[in-house]
């Protein structure tokens, strides 16, 4: 009787999230998998086209351009974000004055709306009268850089992504660092280990599981990110900042109703599937690499 009640309670507590997961997580996946083989504009009868969407994908220069851009965007973001957030976490983990204030400042971008901040960044980066260019001109460093132009738009997007992510990962690293017993560092100091040696021989190995988790999170999030790009450049100029999921978004929601573009649910689903496979492949490579990392330490 008691056991049955526990089972009922377990089901009752699990059911709401299970239903939500099924409706909002699992069902759309199967929906998209089905429509990958159809042409469908959101009305009328979907037309079965077999593997045509994948054949189109293979020849679609815009998709491969978006893949390249995604790798550059995610790579650029990760290369700076992870070391920087770890460095900040190590610094703020020391008992220093104002650490709390700095933690709040660095974490703030994580809780701000990406869309709203993108508009603020437009005011900063726009080349004609943006704040950054005005500053550069005033101190005589430059006559103006087209930060959102063809040459620098991706760099600008990466900088904004770094700004938005550092605080979040810093906090996760901090949580990991606080789990490392202080007496290990004290023993190391007594044995004559310098701070750099302590970092590489104590902090990094002891942080191993957290580091792996944060890197996994960072990789998948970076490969999927597109919100600030959508607001700031819409993937432009002419595809220079188009990333995979922005491309998928545009297939499902054409940017402007005044264009003679219609929704392409079938092809969008195929692109989404291919993008998910690519992210899955990158994640697998990471898993393999992290296993190697485990064996090193």
């Amino acid at each position, binding site marked *: 009787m008691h056991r049955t009640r526990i089972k009922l309670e377990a089901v009752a507590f699990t059911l709401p999230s299970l239903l939500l997961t099924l409706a*909002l997580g699992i069902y*759309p996946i199967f929906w998209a998998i089905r429509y990958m083989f159809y042409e469908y*504009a*959101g*009305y*009328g009868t979907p*037309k079965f086209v077999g593997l045509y969407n994948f054949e189109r994908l293979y020849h*679609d*220069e*815009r998709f491969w351009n978006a893949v390249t851009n995604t790798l550059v965007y995610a790579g650029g973001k990760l290369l700076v974000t992870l070391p920087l957030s770890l460095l900040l976490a190590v610094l703020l983990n020391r008992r220093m004055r104002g650490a709390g204030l700095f933690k709040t400042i660095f974490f703030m*971008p*994580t*809780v*701000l*709306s*990406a*869309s*709203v*901040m993108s508009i603020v960044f*437009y005011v900063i980066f*726009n*080349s*004609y*009268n943006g704040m950054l260019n005005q500053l550069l001109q005033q101190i005589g460093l430059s006559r*103006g850089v*087209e930060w*959102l*132009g*063809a040459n620098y*738009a991706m760099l600008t997007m990466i900088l904004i992504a770094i700004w*938005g*992510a550092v605080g*979040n*990962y810093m906090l996760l690293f901090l949580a990991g660092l606080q789990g490392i017993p202080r007496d290990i560092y004290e023993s190391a100091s007594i044995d004559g280990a310098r701070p750099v040696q302590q970092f590489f021989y104590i902090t990094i190995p002891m942080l191993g599981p957290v580091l792996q988790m944060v890197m996994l*999170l960072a990789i998948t*999030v970076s490969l*999927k*990110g*597109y*919100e600030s790009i959508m607001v700031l*450049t*819409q993937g*432009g*100029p*002419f*595809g220079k900042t188009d990333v995979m*999921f922005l491309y*998928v*978004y545009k297939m499902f*929601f*054409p*940017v*402007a*109703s*005044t*264009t*003679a*573009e*219609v929704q*392409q649910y079938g092809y969008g689903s195929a692109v989404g599937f291919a993008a998910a496979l690519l992210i899955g492949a990158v994640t697998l490579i990471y898993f393999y690499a992290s296993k190697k990392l485990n064996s090193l330490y």
Partner: protein
Amino acid sequence: MARKWLGIALTGILASSLAACGGNNEGNASPSASSAPSGTGAASSSPAASPAASQAEPVKLNFWTPDRGATDHIKAEIARYNETNKDNIQVEVNIMAENYDQQLDIAFASNQAPDIVRVNGLPSLSVFVKKGYLAPLDDLLTPDMKERFGSLLREGVNQIGGKTYTLPNYGTTQRLIYNVELFEKAGIKEPPKTLQEMIDVAKKLTAAGKADGAYGIAGNLKSTGSGLRFADPIGMLSGMGSSGYDYKKGAFDFAQLKPIIEAYRQMKLDGSFIPGVEQLDIDPLRAQFAEGKIGMYVSTASEPLVYKNQFPAKIKWASALPPTIDGQQRGIVPVGNAGIFIGLSPKSEHKEEAWKFIEWMYSDEVLKSYQEDGVGLSVVPSVIAKAGKPEINGIDGFMPTKFDAIIPPVPIIAIEGMGYQEALIKYILVGGDLDAVIKDLNARYNAALDKAKASGEVKAEPMPDFDLSQLQGTLAK
């Protein structure tokens, strides 16, 4: 202990207030979740308390529109209707900020569709009809309405498959908008009439204004949907088709646009464009024009209201018919969104009441107010005869002339690869082989057109006798 709880409470308040502003996706990003249109960002006008409420529950109708530029006007009209109608009807209007089409998709899919739907563009008309968002109005039209709107009903403009789904109200004429003060400073007497003059004028304006940060020409080239808004007014007044579509051939031929695109490329090479033009949306462009930093650009009759309310112009400005390729006006300037306004949802539970409201909205009295308040310029003959000119600086140049006309629709097709606006804007900004770009566009657009025709989605027959000059004088003499 008390401080701890106070801290937790404050943290909770801070978190919930920030969460309400939206969320960065770091750590739990899900494109599907974050991209779903959330909320309407809508300006909502609640129905006023009905005087009849004590007698019977009023019939509540929902009216959705994305016309946020006309928010004040629409709210005032709806409030007037709610106060004065004798049918115990209360209308609630939702003025959408963004993603109107997607909001409608969700509303119809979840049986929360509005009773009255604003049709916000020709592509939307066709799509809304196919999706079942609009009911045919033919059986509901009164003889008076048939008489007033009859001459403006056309297939693809407000009719699909011979059935009428919406009626016209106002349209937006298109003009070359120019900074009179900068023209005077550069010693230019009148706006350019040919593309070559346009190139020369842009260069002179830049030479005269550059020291003060003013440049000759601009365009909202960030937008891949409307960045090429100058092409149709210039091209169609020169006598060519719309959006690269050749009505005579019943096919796309982007070579028509070549002289215009080359002229804009030349202005880019001359340094006549305002810096950062590739990232310029229409509103930032307007903001710069209002400050006197732009010499000229092509846009719609929305601008006078924008320079009155949104970005009060600090300069003297005016508008003129756009230039043509060689100075000859062989065609017309298309009037934007002229054949469409509102329609009835087939899912409305109060169709009779919704139609009463729609009928009221299409009365001459209400349509007149749209023109007089400067929302747009009426295209309905009975309204044009009665409506006064809006009292807005700069509107004079936008009043319909014999060169303004409603154009036949361009087929709506699903293309593969880069859209024509993006491809041609790319050429304007970075150059390349324009002939190759045009060849590629023609191939892809016509392949998509053939496919749509074969599936029966689109009818695009050649019209060998089509002549844009015959549309001259159809709206005004």
